[in-house]
């Protein structure tokens, strides 16, 4: 609810209660006033009209000495009756005169006889006459009455009127009071709404807009608010704060760039010798070795591989946290991809005496659009973990799309659950399971290895894909990690394996004797790369800088160039540009970059310089093969021999 609505939701009931109470008080005041006025009119009519009419004649008789003349007295009393009849017509009040001692009615303008209940009557004195007045019920009708006595003639004089006009008047007052109260509430609410809008909501909205801009742009803002009150002060504070934020963000960005640069350099500097270690170990294992030597070489390769994994994890995390990770969506057969992963990881599971089960729902013949690399990384991470912590158990992977797909591409939700029967996670540690460098137990690191970054990276990757990873676990029974992600899906009626680029690549075959020019300044890396390429039946020629590479390409006879990026004399980028400037078909020779730089944006810049593909160090025979197969599939390379 917006603040204005909230304020009005508070104000209006308060106003309604306040105005209603005021209105009720006004009604009661008006009620008393109207009643008092009616009684006043009635008693005044009795005293100043009726009794005056009587008294005037009585005095006239006294002054004329006719008081004791019956004919005059009777005639004048008759005159009184006649005048009261006229007064009744003029005032619509009724008048009655009765014998005071006997209560016998002498005269009445009312058609029916009536008897008043004067027990609770009020008493007052008007014009030196004692008057009783009040309300009574006469013949089932409420009436107001006033009565007094005229002693000289032994009369009791009564004036009465129906209470209905008074009640009608009071009803009108009540109705008007309600209407005025309601009207006042509406008007005051509107005014308060307007005032609140002008003095509170509008300034807050301006500050909020400024805060949003700060959150998005991290820039200093200027808030158009000239008030000198608390909100104005807040606006000034926000302006100052935004300036500081801009400054801090600039510093942070600078620090981040420095960190990224450092990581890039470190990545390159570590990967380059690591490439040599891994490559040489691989080459060493292919030579005749004693069992002891073979074990040493194998351990060397494993250690290099673990080191590479650690470096990759650190780089991944660094990229994610610096916001440099981008989502690269492609359409692929997720079901097949997961099945292949299960097959790939099955070897590890078997080694741990663990059974790996995969099942899917709504995913047969369905093309999914998402970032395949990140999904694969997440699943590998979770399944690898599950296998690692499950000994002689079962790891089951179930994947499903929440909604069945149609032929038209549409949004969907991918849910993949990785459930194991492993050691489980203690409840107090489960909430920290996705923290960086955290495992459920420090002893785990010692027993099972790992950097503790895998789950953190997986969770952040899942969040990048619009989903998340949740975990439920019970110590001794196992854990279940559930990955969700926003994807798009469509049903492929004639789905064939050919449409999957990965499979295509797998099925393509490399021609033998491809003339490869290897440009690499690091002698060890050159030896490794050459050996690996030769394993792929390539005919490798080595040069140690870019200038030589460009010159060699110009001479002709080269099918593909593996070009190290950082080389003396001329680096790989410049050499690639020169090659692209050669005449004829020579300018189209595919160039595959070799780099220890792991950041994607750097790879993009290499491709923009003219490179066809990038292989990241430490190079493996699989990476080299995949890259060559990709070029072969694109018909960029052919065997010149």
């Amino acid at each position, binding site marked *: 609810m917006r603040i204005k609505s909230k304020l009005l939701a508070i104000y209006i009931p308060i106003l309604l209660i306040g105005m209603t109470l005021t209105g009720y008080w006004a009604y009661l005041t008006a009620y008393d006033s109207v009643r008092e006025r009616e009684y006043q009119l009635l008693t005044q009519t009795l005293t100043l009209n009726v009794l005056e009419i009587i008294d005037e004649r009585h005095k006239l008789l006294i002054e004329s*000495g006719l008081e004791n003349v019956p004919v005059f007295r009777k005639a004048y009393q008759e005159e009184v009756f006649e005048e009261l009849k006229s007064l009744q017509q003029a005032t619509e009040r009724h008048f009655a005169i009765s014998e005071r001692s006997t209560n016998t009615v002498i005269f009445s303008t009312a058609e029916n006889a009536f008897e008043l209940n004067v027990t609770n009557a009020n008493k007052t004195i008007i014009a030196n006459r004692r008057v009783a007045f009040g309300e009574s019920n006469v013949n089932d009708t409420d009436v107001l009455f006033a009565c007094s006595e005229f002693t000289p003639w032994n009369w009791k004089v009564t004036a009465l009127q129906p209470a209905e006009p008074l009640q009608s008047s009071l009803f009108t007052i009540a109705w008007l009071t309600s209407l005025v109260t309601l009207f006042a509430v509406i008007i005051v609410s509107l005014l308060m709404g307007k005032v609140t809008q002008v003095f509170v909501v509008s300034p807050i909205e301006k500050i909020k807009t400024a805060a949003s801009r700060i959150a998005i742009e991290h820039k200093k803002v200027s808030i158009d608010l000239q008030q000198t009150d608390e909100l104005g002060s807040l606006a000034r504070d926000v302006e100052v704060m935004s300036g500081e934020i801009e400054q801090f963000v600039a510093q942070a960005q600078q620090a981040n760039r420095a960190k990224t640069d450092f990581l890039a350099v470190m990545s390159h500097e570590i990967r380059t010798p690591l490439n040599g270690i891994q490559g040489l170990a691989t080459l060493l294992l292919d030579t005749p070795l004693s069992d002891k030597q073979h074990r040493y070489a194998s351990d060397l390769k494993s250690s290099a591989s673990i080191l590479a994994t650690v470096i990759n994890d650190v780089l991944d995390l660094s990229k994610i946290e610096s916001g440099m990770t981008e989502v690269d969506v492609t359409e692929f057969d997720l079901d097949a991809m997961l099945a292949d992963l299960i097959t790939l990881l099955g070897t590890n599971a078997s080694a741990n005496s663990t059974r790996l089960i995969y099942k899917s729902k709504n995913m047969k013949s369905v093309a999914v659009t998402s970032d395949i690399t990140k999904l694969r990384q997440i699943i590998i991470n979770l399944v690898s973990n599950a296998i690692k912590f499950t000994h002689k158990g079962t790891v089951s992977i179930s994947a499903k799309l929440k909604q069945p797909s149609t032929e038209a591409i549409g949004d969907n939700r991918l849910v993949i659950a990785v459930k194991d029967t492993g050691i489980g996670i203690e409840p107090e540690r489960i909430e920290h399971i996705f923290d960086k460098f955290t495992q459920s137990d420090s002893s785990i690191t010692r027993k099972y290895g790992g950097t503790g970054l895998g789950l953190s990276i997986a969770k952040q990757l899942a969040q990048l894909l619009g989903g998340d990873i949740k975990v439920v676990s019970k110590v001794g029974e196992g854990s279940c990690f559930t990955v969700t992600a926003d994807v798009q899906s469509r049903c492929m009626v004639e789905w064939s394996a050919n449409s999957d680029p990965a499979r295509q690549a797998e099925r393509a075959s490399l021609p033998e004797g491809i003339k490869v020019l290897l440009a690499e300044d690091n002698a060890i890396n050159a030896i490794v790369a050459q050996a690996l390429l030769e394993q792929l039946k390539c005919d490798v020629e080595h040069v140690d800088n870019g200038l030589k590479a460009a010159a060699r390409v110009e001479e002709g006879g080269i099918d593909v160039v593996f070009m190290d990026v950082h080389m003396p004399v001329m680096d790989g980028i410049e050499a690639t540009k020169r090659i692209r400037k050669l005449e004829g078909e020579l300018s189209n020779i595919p160039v595959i970059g070799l780099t220890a730089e792991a950041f994607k944006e750097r790879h993009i810049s290499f491709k923009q310089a003219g490179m066809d593909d990038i292989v990241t160090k430490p190079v493996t025979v699989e990476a080299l093969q995949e890259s060559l197969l990709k070029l072969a599939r694109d018909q960029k390379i052919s065997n010149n021999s």
Partner: protein
Amino acid sequence: MTKVWFSFFFALSSMVWGTTAALAKERLDLIVLETLPVPIVAESRTEFEKELVRIMPDYEINVTSYNAEGSEVRAKEILAELALKPAPDLIVSIATLATRALNASEEFIDTPKLFMAVSAPVEEGIVSAIGAVSERNMTGESHVLDAKVKLDMLDGVLRASNPMSPFTIGLVHSTYPSSSNLVNQLLALNNDYKNINLVAVSTPYIEGDDGLVEMTDNIIGSLQQKANELDGYWLSSGPLAEAKGLVEKVKNASGLLPLFAESIATVKEGALIGVVSEPASIGKSAARKAKLILEKKSARGIPVNKMDKYTVAVNVSTAIKLQLPIPSNYLRLSKKHVYQ
């Protein structure tokens, strides 16, 4: 020296004469012509003169009165004699016969004329209607209340007693013009009042004091004859209303009491109710009109009206005797004229 003294005395005499002339009041000559030797006429004239002197202090009012002794013929003779003399500033006629003679006189057509104590100026041909002006250079006021109002008043008194049958009332009058005119008006309106049945009781008008006595006797005789038919009588304006002892004589002779009278004196003597213009009011009102005329406003431009001030009088003894309670509003109006 003699010449000096002569010149001195001449200058002194001129100065005294001039001062005297400057201090002398302008003289206004008025002639009053009256016919009926009754109190209303005499009192009205006296009050007229007194009021005129009071409201015109800067003038020397010289009033010469002529009494026509109740005779129109005598009035005409007086006027013929006056025509031979210098014309006065104003001629005032009192009562109907003198006014009739003055209005008819051609000799005084250019002399402004004022009448008073005339009950029916329209019927006398002075003006065509009340509120109109006279073409014969005469103006004045009728001192008599409208006949309908009088009947309304009497009807109000009678109605208060809730009579089972109408009161038969003898309408006593003479053939004196104002008296007979009023009676005719009353009779014409009688049918509108269910409580009143008017019966004309008339006597011929006889001039002079002896005539008044004779007229009184005639009326007493007539009422005596009709005593059984009548519940009372109405003493109309005119000479009979001023006759001394009439009420008492009628009462003694016939036992009838007057129910309505047009003189305060008659109410004092026993009339149930009466309404009349008092002579003082008549005289004062006429004096105010005379002042206008003497200050050079033409009598031709002053309309003839009725008086606007009347006096109500009641006699409660008669009311009690007749068991006719006088309504409180009349009793209140009577103020100082409640008699017993």
